[in-house]
């Protein structure tokens, strides 16, 4: 039987799940979006509507496109949806047991070489895959923040991933209008591994009093043509998540360059987690707009 991508199951309707569902629906495919209860699904559906309204206000989509997107997303609470799908992707919390159980559930319901995608930046694809009947159909995808506008996705090959399955996942990435970066399983892949030392170093510079956070960011932004400075980037990702990643990298590799900057730990302990709490290295309004930009940090025509 030939495999074609028409129906996608997404397990977990958090921010990541909703973003992927939106993109898949925009490309004309049907999505089953699974949550643990109808109440939770309804909450997520409302949040998605708000997000889409925001997208309209920012000229990313139109009212009609919003309607089309919503009409192609089917909200479910059972794994049965996987029986009809051509590819399944989980977007639940970074917990090994949880992801392993989901992969097992999906594995039982889908034809053998239909891809099951794990969405992770820290867990071992190979280890999760090994717990299923068909480990060769399991692989990883690592989307970057913000999912809707970042063009890149790391497609992660586990030790046992089959070529045919991997190629299908690459096709899925293309369908999402993302550029697939092909990587082998290794802590941090490419993006996380390279960016964390940079962010960590920027935090050290601030902690040592060499320059203010705003100036560190502005220097890198203007100096290296970054769209966002590393500290604002960390604020937007969430400092707690950044700390988790870097701690994980430190544990996995033992490399000193991944030792979390004490300032990061202090901010997280103080509950200053970035945009989601309104304050991290910088301050933000409820719409996540940064309030304390330097006069030179303004868009303008050069």
């Amino acid at each position: 039987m030939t495999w074609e991508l028409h129906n996608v199951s997404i397990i977990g309707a958090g921010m990541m799940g909703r973003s992927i569902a939106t993109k898949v629906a925009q490309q004309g495919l049907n999505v089953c979006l699974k949550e643990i209860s109808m109440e939770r699904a309804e909450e997520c559906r409302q949040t998605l509507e708000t997000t889409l309204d925001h997208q309209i206000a920012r000229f990313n989509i139109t009212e009609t496109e919003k309607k089309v997107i919503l009409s192609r997303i089917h909200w479910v609470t059972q794994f049965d949806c996987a029986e009809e799908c051509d590819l399944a992707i989980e977007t639940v919390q970074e917990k090994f047991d949880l992801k392993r159980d989901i992969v097992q559930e999906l594995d039982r319901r889908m034809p053998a070489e239909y891809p099951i995608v794990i969405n992770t930046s820290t867990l071992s694809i190979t280890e999760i895959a090994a717990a299923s009947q068909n480990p060769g159909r399991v692989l990883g995808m690592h989307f970057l923040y913000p999912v809707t506008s970042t063009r890149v996705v790391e497609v992660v090959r586990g030790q046992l991933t089959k070529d045919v399955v991997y190629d299908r996942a690459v096709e899925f990435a293309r369908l999402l209008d993302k550029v697939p970066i092909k990587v082998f399983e290794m802590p941090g892949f490419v993006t996380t591994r390279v960016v964390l030392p940079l962010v960590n170093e920027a935090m050290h510079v601030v902690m040592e009093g060499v320059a203010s956070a705003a100036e560190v960011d502005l220097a890198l932004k203007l100096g290296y043509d970054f769209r966002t400075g590393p500290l604002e980037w960390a604020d937007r990702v969430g400092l707690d998540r950044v700390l988790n990643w870097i701690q994980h990298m430190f544990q996995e590799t033992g490399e000193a360059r991944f030792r979390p900057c004490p300032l990061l730990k202090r901010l997280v302990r103080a509950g200053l987690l970035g945009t989601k709490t309104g304050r991290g290295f910088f301050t933000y309004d409820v719409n996540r707009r940064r309030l304390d930009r330097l006069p030179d940090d303004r868009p303008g025509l050069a």
Partner: protein
Amino acid sequence: MKILVLNSGSSSVKFQIVETDLERMQAHQDETLAIGQVEKIGLSDSRLLLQVPGRSAYQDYREVLEHRAAIEWVLRVLVDPENGIISSTDEIGAVGHRVVHGGEAFASSVLMTPDVVSQIEECTVLAPLHNPANLRGYYAAHAILSEVPHVAVFDTAYHQTMPAHAFLYGIPFQFYTKHHLRRYGFHGTSHRFVSYRASQILGWERAEKRYITCHLGNGCSIAAIDRGRSIDTSMGFTPLEGLLMGTRSGDLDPAIIPWLMAMEEMTLHQVNTMLNKHSGLYGVSGVSSDMREVLKARDAGHQRADVAFRIFSYRIRKYIGAYTAAMGGVDAVVFTGGIGEHSPEVRAWALDGLGFMGLELDVDRNARVRGEEAEITTAESAVKALVVPTNEEWVIARDVIRVLNDIMPSFTPPETMT
């Protein structure tokens, strides 16, 4: 001859069966036997709609994953004893395909030989959304109806007669040679049809008169037709230039784009969507992209609906003035397209105050004309204005006949730039 006319989009195929030949064309007695479309190609609930004059509409749903399946479905329904209109697909004598962009390669409608098809492929860079879909329709139709001729009719071909001073932009010349970046114009089949039809209605020899044709539909464009040749038109490199449209901005200062991108931190995608889908009547009025809704709101005293209506109509008037000057006068102004045919308000505003150039609107008559061929100027008016419903499918069908009889005129450019 029965001709299948296809207009293929990325997820839809619109079709008509048109009965025509040289005699019918001359007598303006072409006949539309069926109109229909398949929507939502690629999904499990694709819909086919078929309308046959004098019958109630027929529709059906099924999973159609690509264009070939869609066209096969269309043909099955067309030969269906109960709902169809032909007894066998052998009755279809030829297929006419609407192709949006013919670039500078095509100045007339042509038989789709393998060479022609690959040249159309090359024009894809100029119309990345439309040409691939048009070609997908062609490949599908050609696979099924391989025995009959297929003809391509381009939106751009008719405007190829524009002189260089009308089609070149005032930017470094290298972009023209490097990317073929120039004004092309669209709606060519419509401008051509209504100017021709207007000359028939007025009993004029077409090659002697000057027309300004206003195609006001979903997209809007206006053209200066000087003695049968398009010498200027308001749409340019893309269908975004020129008049205000339902959701498109039309003309604007290009400096606005980088300025907004900087000030609002907008991406290319956002600016593009903003100009194409969030602007025009909709963006200004905040009410709707549909002129009927805008007019309703205007009648109810909605200020922004009123100004949206005025921008829309004023720009038409401005272009009429410009094209009159460009041709050294005008003999007839023609309105077509959904808005042009059905909105007396827009026509009245667009033609207001043109008495100085000899155009006198018959206010009462204009107010009554909706969707029918009619003059809307007074008997004394030196310059005529009229409404002519467009029929692009007829042009496509007629061009098929012309190409097959080797009488297709070529809209050759008056000069080439190197």
